[in-house]
């Protein structure tokens, strides 16, 4: 079955079997990936997948299913199982009818690039270009992935929502090492080949790795900091993700009961925008069929809204922000961000460093873990470049420090932002945000700890 036929079949069968409401998204996609390590390609991958996903409601009980066995018989069997389950499961307290269509969806420019869908073995050349560029910039060896996706999706609902989405994405992440510990990272991504620059990503990774050589051990304490775009992608994924109304309701957020309050410095504004041209997370409709748009999460440091789907909107007595997303294995149906945008400041990168004058530059953060989600206390591993800022310039590399602070404290202590935001698709995204567009951000009095033995 093609995606059009499949999504219609899912809706028809669901209704026929007794569902009150149903929405289906059928996706046909081909993904290609090249992984490399030690400057060599370690494996090439191709995935051909048809995926059918449904949200089904009966007697106010709400269930979802993901199916990769998409034969008619298997779909029918799964839908029958779901209907049977609705009879014994309890109604959802915040049940809300699916959005009533029909809707007109705005076309997002440059969401599909045929050149990406036909790359095939040409993609090997991009990997080689990135590796060579990193090597020329000082890398001893590089590792990474190139991922290319070409997908066609069809959404159909029993409430007359109907949408088509054709999309390509390309994402290269390269991590270079100049020795065992000195590393750097470069990322390039988008929906269009014109936005893709593997040489530049390689150059950044290799250059940072070289700069990180001969690092000295850092000292525990509080520092003024400039966070790179890569580091900010990880931090603002958390800020936006913790503003999913689902996580707020579940107590897995430091933004509980903070709507309308000052949660960040005046300089911080944060948006979720599913319509960004070239955005890896861009989509004309969410997975309930709502037309997407731009949502202001934080403006002038004030928390304006959480992200909602229909269920959470009912709970919070507000409107959906069109952030209903399909589910993942360890997540249920919930609102999540599409493309997170951090509002740019007025400084050049150099001016931002000059303003901080003395402190630290943090290039990448991974392995973020919380002691207390409600309070926001966390720590994260710093890697791929940690440098002293002395007299407004990056000087010597530092190692062994761990970022140990609090999300709200970090937002409130932001002092300035640079003016050029770049799209980052990061491997370590706690809340799976597809992309974060961010400039550099400076913040004062940020905590760092060290191993004591």
């Amino acid at each position: 079955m093609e995606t059009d036929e499949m999504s219609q079949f899912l809706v028809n069968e669901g209704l026929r079997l007794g569902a009150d409401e149903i929405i289906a998204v059928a996706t046909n996609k081909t993904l290609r990936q090249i992984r490399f390590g030690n400057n060599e390609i370690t494996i090439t991958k191709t995935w051909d997948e048809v995926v059918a996903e449904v949200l089904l409601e009966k007697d106010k009980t709400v269930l979802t299913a993901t199916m990769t066995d998409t034969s008619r018989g298997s779909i029918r069997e799964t839908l029958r199982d779901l209907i049977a389950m609705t009879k014994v499961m309890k109604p959802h307290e915040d049940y809300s009818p699916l959005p009533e269509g029909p809707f007109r969806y705005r076309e997002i420019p440059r969401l599909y690039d045929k050149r990406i869908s036909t790359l095939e073995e040409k993609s090997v050349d991009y990997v080689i270009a990135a590796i060579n560029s990193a090597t020329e910039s000082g890398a001893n060896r590089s590792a990474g992935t190139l991922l290319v996706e070409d997908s066609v999706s069809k959404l159909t609902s029993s409430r007359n929502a109907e949408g088509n989405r054709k999309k390509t994405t390309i994402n290269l992440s390269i991590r270079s090492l100049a020795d065992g510990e000195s590393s750097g990272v470069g990322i390039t991504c988008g929906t269009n080949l014109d936005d893709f620059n593997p040489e530049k990503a390689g150059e950044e990774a290799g250059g940072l790795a070289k700069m990180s050589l001969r690092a000295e051990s850092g000292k525990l304490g509080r520092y003024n900091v400039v966070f790179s775009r890569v580091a900010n992608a990880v931090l603002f994924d958390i800020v936006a993700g913790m503003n999913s109304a689902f996580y707020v309701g579940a107590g897995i957020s430091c933004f509980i009961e903070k709507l309308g309050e000052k949660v960040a410095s005046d300089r911080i504004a944060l948006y979720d925008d599913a319509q960004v041209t070239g955005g890896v997370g861009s989509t004309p409709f969410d997975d309930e069929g709502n037309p997407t748009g731009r949502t202001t999460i934080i403006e002038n440091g004030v928390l304006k809204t959480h992200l909602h789907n229909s269920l959470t909107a009912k709970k919070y007595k507000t409107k959906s922000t069109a952030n209903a997303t399909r589910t993942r294995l360890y997540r249920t149906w919930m609102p999540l961000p599409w493309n997170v945008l951090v509002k740019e400041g007025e400084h050049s990168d150099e001016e931002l460093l000059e303003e901080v004058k003395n402190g630290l530059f943090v290039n990448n953060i991974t392995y973020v873990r919380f002691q207390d989600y409600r309070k926001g206390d966390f720590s994260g591993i710093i890697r791929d470049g940690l440098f002293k800022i002395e007299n407004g310039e990056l000087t010597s590399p530092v190692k062994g420090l761990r970022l140990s602070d609090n999300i709200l404290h970090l937002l409130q202590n932001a002092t300035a932002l640079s003016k050029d935001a770049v799209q980052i698709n990061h491997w370590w995204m706690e809340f799976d945000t597809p992309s974060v567009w961010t400039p550099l951000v400076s913040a004062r009095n940020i905590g760092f700890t060290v191993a004591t033995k």
Partner: protein
Amino acid sequence: MKELADFAVGYAGELGAEYAEARFQNDLKNMYLLVNGKPEVGRFVRSSGIGIRVLIDGGMSFLSINKPDKELLKKRVKEAVKIARSSVKTMKKPIRLSPEKTSKKEWEAKAKIPFKDVSLKEKVGLLFDIDNAVSSPREVGIKIASRYFYFLEYEIEKYFLNSEGTEVSSFLPKIMFYGLLTASEPQKGTEQDRIGKGESRGWEAVKEWDLVNHAAEKAKTLGRILKTAKEAPKGRLDIVLGSEVVGLMMHESAGHPYEADRIMGREAAQAGESFITRDMIGQKIGPETVTVVDDPTVEHSFGYYLYDDEGVPARRRYLIEGGVINEFLHNRETAFEMGVKSNGAARAEFFDREPIVRMASTFMLPGDHTFEELIEDVKQGVFMNTFGEWNIDDRRYNMRFIGRECYLIEKGNLRSMVRRPILEITTPGFFGSIDALDKNLKYEGAICGKSDPAQGAPVWHGGPNVRVKDVKLGGVE
């Protein structure tokens, strides 16, 4: 689809592949979630398809397909062969696989109580019972402001074959429970704790977990922390680490750094590398009392399997034996590279994921002390029974654990609770400071993430209670 798996291996051979394998995998996953006493959207996964690997001229390709389309499969296998050959131009030396005995085997883990024999009413009802048990401040002594519980039940059917003649079929049920409790107390703030359980068997595991009482005890402990815990001491002292803490340390500091693909740099971009190098086999890293194993064959364990996803028989791996670095975790690619046999550590999460080097059940073998003996020799110290926040750098060298349920130890006795002591220590620093182990081996179930695209592997980790001497608790003011 199984016929397509057979066809793919034969067809890759016709195209000149020196090695080919196919794995048909059929997954059923059901998730039931209760948040703050309200049922959330139920989540069900029906996943089925074939993953294929082809090795040609030393280049490796992986492809997956989930539609029974023979023509598309032929096209993709042809492309895989072409792109694998094209990738060889970047390689200094070709990929080779360690020679292994072929196997023809069927194995399964039997569920005494299959998931289908348990009504949904009972499954969701148990979540409500757990929620009720922690919701009454009068019963547990504290307000549990947020409650998040789910069951995830799995059934995994696999059929593996390769061009060398190995054929392995398997069936594995798994069940997981996760809970997150947030207690709050005016003026004292909040404390969170989680419950992680996982086993490879049927609903009988859940009956043995005694989740209602377990969750209520967790809630009570959070209340005691908020109401009675004093400021944690800083500076040099002795620490007794509880099994839960030791278990995760074994996973992070003895499991991950011994994964041969990390050591070789294959995971450098994301998961990272290792402070362990291939020439460190035979080096001393801890006292003789310390032996750390990874063992997929522990019955009922969450990471249980008898053959890995390259068709290699599973066995216990002695990562650290008598304080000495003994062996790494290998798949066939890393084993060939290091001149050894695979020890059966290749695992793939779904049909569309390549098999990579993973842990299964990683734990420190117990010692001969009683818990009381560990405590009675400590003049001034802390017992860190459980942890909240933790992380470790990508070389698995610099780790941090912040305690959750912790007690001051004075003159050999457990005293008052202390709040959030911070242990930040290197892996050699930790192993080098181990002074004594007790007899009480316990395991926790968890999902381990690795690689790109990320693969979540069900694992156990465990250990006894362990005493470490003369370490420094710290943190930033």
